[in-house]
């Protein structure tokens, strides 16, 4: 809240999201998205800012990363990303074939944390 930031309340959230008010259920703070393809000239200004973050990037960004980088509310970014996934501009990273189907998230997190101590 310090520094000369613009006030996010100056613009109503549904203006930023081109009228959309609801995020996809699978688009959460931690959801990682990568750039796909598609012309961006029809997108709204904030959606274009999201896409510019991905220009030339070798990797993805989570919804939270986008919100922090663009100083936009995470709830708004969830909706923007939902729209950009529906339009095909963004997509989820595709699991490699060797990604086991029973990939157990909790067990992987536990193993991962234990390997760090």
């Amino acid at each position: 809240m310090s520094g000369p930031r613009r006030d996010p309340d100056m613009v109503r959230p549904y203006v930023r999201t081109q009228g959309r008010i609801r995020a996809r259920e699978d688009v959460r703070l931690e959801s990682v998205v990568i750039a796909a393809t598609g012309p961006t000239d029809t997108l709204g200004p904030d959606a274009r800012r999201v896409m510019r973050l991905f220009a030339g990037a070798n990797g993805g960004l989570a919804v939270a990363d986008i919100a922090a980088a663009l100083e936009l509310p995470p709830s708004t970014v969830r909706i923007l990303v939902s729209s950009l996934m529906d339009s095909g501009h963004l997509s989820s990273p595709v699991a490699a074939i060797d990604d086991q189907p029973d990939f157990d998230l909790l067990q992987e997190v536990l193993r991962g944390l234990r390997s760090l101590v």
Partner: protein
Amino acid sequence: MDCAPSSDRADRTDESGRAVTYVPATVTRSAKIVVAGGFGVGKTTLIGSVSEVRPLRMEEPITQASTGVDDLRGTPHKTTTTVAMDFGRIHMAGGRLALYLFGLPGQSRFQPLWEDLAEGALGCLVLADTRDLDASHDALGLLDGAGIPYAVAINTFPGAPEYPEAELREALALEPATPLTYLDARDRISSLHALITLTEYLTEHRPAALLESRR
């Protein structure tokens, strides 16, 4: 691409001059653990201790009704405040998995925010300070209400009073199975051990809803 995600990540500066740390291209899944607790209890410190990337901050404006006792018009004023949330990231599983840690403010007036942002969390680590245990009550109430499993960690501030575990459990009204542990949020290993305690508990008491939502 090798499997050392924290070293092959590409940092870049965005249009406003902040560094953007991309998620390595190896990552195909992500998960979220919430760190909750009252103001100043060490959420941001803990996230900074364990994150493999520089912690970032999001800001969410929330509108809330503020009814005053003198308000005779029956139309409560609405005020907008901005809630700051810090977060960090750990890469694991050979670079396939990114674990995000989000610090969420525990005050009960932020309940709408919680419903939006904590959804899908594996679980929550609630930080508490023995100098002000009451500050944890709101967070514990929010978690009980939302059905999010949690562990409690006492952040051991120098000079803070020490109480027997039974007294702490009673003061925090914890279920017998809920883990209660201690950490120094400034210390990476100590903080990681608390996250391991939480995750061990989650694997043993895995809510059915989690299994459904993850497929």
